[in-house]
């Protein structure tokens, strides 16, 4: 717990990293502020799943703040089944070569070597993702050991704080990826932010019991209770398919949106991408959302999450 304490205090990021030496002017790479800081810069933006360099260009043109380089979007992973792994290295490189915005890529939960490979490639963020088939059903990656920052999925506050305790520099809701159904993203966003609000109402002497109940590091529980917010940026993900979905997640308190299958499984990817970007910025202006939603054609076909067999749910991967 001692180690965790020094590593989670924002002012102590100097002692937070094992692997990075400092130059005489205090020059320092891979510290907490730099890792969490990139996510701060992405706030209010949309991060889009892309499977080809051409799609990455479309996303950039539409105003995406970053792209997630993937071999298959979640909707196809869901349909085709099999083991879903880190994307092909040449594909990721091809996407990195054609866009100027940050490029993210996914590693399997617990697959530290996939993450090392992604870091070596120079991707800007690693998503330790339940959309891929987990490599470890017990442990997540020790994200403090990396210079590259990580984003992780969460269904509630306890899960978000466990990932932050492991070094995640950004969190997102898990939602239920590849369904085009926003219901799980809404559930998870309300659970995370409702959890934050509940902590603020507790007395200090109640926080240890609450940390036990949440299964979350005590120091982070205290920090959230005191500041009233998560220590890292919190995006929504997993089922956002329309401009109105994107704005809904922002009104519920998301810092930004990941959109996966929703864009390139729609009738008009560029149109949907632009409209979702605009709806994320002007999330509280229904007239703007109405404007950008007009004439877009069909959204991706959605799935009823309740009808999915338990073993097909992605959100229950990881803990």
């Amino acid at each position: 717990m001692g180690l965790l304490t020094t590593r989670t205090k924002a002012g102590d990021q100097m002692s937070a990293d094992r692997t990075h030496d400092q130059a005489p002017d205090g020059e320092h790479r891979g510290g907490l502020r730099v890792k969490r800081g990139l996510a701060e810069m992405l706030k209010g933006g949309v991060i889009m799943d892309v499977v080809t360099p051409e799609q990455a260009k479309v996303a950039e043109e539409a105003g995406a703040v970053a792209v997630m380089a993937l071999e298959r979007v979640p909707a196809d992973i869901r349909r085709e089944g099999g083991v879903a792994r880190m994307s092909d290295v040449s594909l990721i490189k091809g996407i990195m070569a054609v866009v100027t915005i940050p490029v993210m890529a996914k590693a399997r939960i617990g697959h530290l070597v996939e993450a090392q490979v992604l870091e070596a490639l120079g991707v800007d963020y690693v998503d330790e993702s339940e959309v891929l088939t987990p490599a470890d059903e017990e442990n997540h990656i020790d994200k403090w050991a990396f210079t590259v920052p990580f984003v992780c999925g969460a269904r509630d506050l306890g899960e978000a704080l466990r990932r932050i305790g492991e070094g995640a520099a950004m969190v997102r809701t898990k939602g239920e990826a590849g369904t085009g159904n926003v219901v799980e993203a809404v559930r998870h966003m309300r659970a995370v932010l409702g959890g934050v609000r509940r902590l603020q109402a507790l007395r200090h002497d109640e926080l240890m019991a609450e940390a036990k109940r949440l299964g979350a590091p005590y120091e982070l529980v205290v920090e959230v209770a005191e500041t009233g917010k998560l220590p890292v940026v919190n995006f929504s993900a997993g089922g956002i398919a329309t401009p109105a979905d994107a704005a809904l997640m922002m009104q519920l308190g998301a810092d930004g949106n990941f959109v996966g299958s929703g864009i390139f499984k729609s009738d008009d990817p560029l149109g949907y991408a632009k409209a979702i970007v605009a709806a994320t910025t002007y999330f509280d202006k229904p007239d703007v959302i109405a404007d950008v939603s007009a004439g877009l054609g069909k959204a991706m076909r959605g799935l009823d999450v309740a009808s999915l067999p338990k073993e097909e749910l992605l959100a229950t991967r990881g803990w």
Partner: protein
Amino acid sequence: MLALQGDVREHLAAFDQAGAEALPVRTADEILSVHALALPGGESSTLSRLIRIFGLEAPLRHRLAGGMPTFSTCAGTILLSRAILDGTVDQLALGALDLRTRRNGYGRQVDSFECDLDVPVLGSASFRAIFIRAPVIEGCGPGVEMLAAHEGRPVAVRQGRHLSFTFHPEMTGDLRLHRLFLDGVGELLESDAPLPAEGSVA
């Protein structure tokens, strides 16, 4: 505070702590009504796109031509530059700063860093600077004053009423640069000099 995308919240908090009345602006009318404008860190290509599709380019150019003071960090500095290298096709360069600026000039996120900077205009105590996928200023016009440099290249500059940085003073809790800007705006508002023009675009 231009609030289309980026680390708007951090800037608002910093200006608030420094004693200013800071508010987010996202529409043409709002841009036309403020005394000074801060442009945040974010993705400059995204900001460029949003400014264009929501008709904010004309009001921004109008206010900049009228002498509106600006405070800009990272992506904001790119937007205000005269020339942008490694930008997207047609990326907006508002040209208020006589700078030639290269996007992601240090490399990718794994090359992001923080360091101590000497900023003589703030006195002898160094300033902790956080560079995140930061741009590099590769050329400055004669009217640009360099306030701080890193490895021989300017990272903090002043040009008339504009204060611009390639790093993120809003992320450190050190408010000295925000205060420097607010002092300048305060003097301008109190002086007899014509106020930065408010009003509609002709």
